[in-house]
């Protein structure tokens, strides 16, 4: 009985201590992605539109492992274990697209995919987006997702084989 109360008191103190931790302890370290690692942590008003960059990259298993200058912003990610099998990366295309809550914005990529983006919501420094990725000639999206991302954050999508390599997409959106 005595030990039960001691344990309960200990648990209560742990909970109180955790509740007193400031929110800064859980703050995120801003990610880099395809842009300089500046924090866009400002409060974003519900503006209803955003500007997105879509990068299409081919990752190949042969090469000397050099990251080209136009992909330096993604170097940390491309050198991670996730892409350890790939030794060279080539930026095929970069497109800018405006997205809004009104309708889907479609982008046809030379690498053989169609990208559809739609802004779903803007919520205090985060964007909620809908992403759809179709292979050219396909009738059903290979990927259909709703996600939220920090304003200026990056999402990577690795698709199928293209040009003797693997198609890789980077999506970065900023609210206007």
């Amino acid at each position, binding site marked *: 009985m005595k030990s039960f109360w001691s344990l309960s008191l200990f648990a*209560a103190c742990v909970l109180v201590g955790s509740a007193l931790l400031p929110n800064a302890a859980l703050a*995120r370290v801003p990610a880099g992605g395809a842009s300089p690692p500046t924090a866009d942590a400002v409060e974003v008003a519900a503006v209803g539109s955003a500007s997105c960059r879509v990068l299409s990259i081919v990752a190949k298993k042969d090469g000397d492992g050099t990251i080209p200058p136009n992909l330096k912003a993604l170097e940390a990610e491309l050198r*991670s274990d996730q892409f350890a099998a790939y030794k060279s990366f080539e930026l095929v295309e970069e497109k800018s697209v405006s997205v809004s809550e009104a309708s889907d914005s479609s982008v046809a990529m030379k690498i053989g995919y169609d990208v559809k983006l739609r802004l779903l919501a803007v919520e205090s420094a985060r964007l909620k987006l809908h992403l759809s990725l179709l292979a050219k000639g396909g009738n059903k999206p290979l990927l259909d997702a709703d996600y939220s991302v920090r304003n200026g954050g990056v999402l990577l999508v690795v698709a199928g084989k293209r040009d003797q390599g693997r198609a890789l997409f980077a999506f970065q959106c900023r609210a206007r």
Partner: protein
Amino acid sequence: MNEHDEMLLSAYLDDELDPSERAKFEARLAADGILTERLQAWQAMRTLVVAEAEAEANDLPVARFEQIWDQVRSTLEPSSSPTVQSNVVSLPIWRRYWPVLAAAAAAVALVILLPRTAPESTAPHTPPAVAVAPSAAPATSSPNDPSSSPPQAVSNNEVQIERIEFAGQSGRIAQIEDVRGTTTVIWIEEDPQPVDSERSL
């Protein structure tokens, strides 16, 4: 004879009645033969018990009698017994309240010692940390189940996937941890036949 009469009989034998009650009871005894017989029987029994106890007491040595009496007294008056007092050990305060003190110390340690991450960390770091293994992806859609996966709420990460559907063979979600934060990578497994892009045409 009822219970009240038995109580009166017992009190009368023990000389516990006040004078007026005693007089009344003696008047009843004179008039009630059954009550008188019961009184005589009780008196005889009492005489026997007392005689027996006295005989037994006379057989006991005086020293043993004192010893028994000391034991009885120590049982009745424990605070006055030096033996009982010596068994009570008073613990120091820190031993009495160590659970409370330990809990309080643990809470203080949690508040003070837990690392607090700065919002803008610009300190240089070593090469990127090991990424999450693809097999440890939290949300994966099976080939025959293109339905949407349950929402993935990943705290402290850049991307939170709220709904995802893979229409191809399958897919998985992985994360890369590096000095700048967490990057989410969605892997799509398409059909095995590669499709040429416009670049190769």
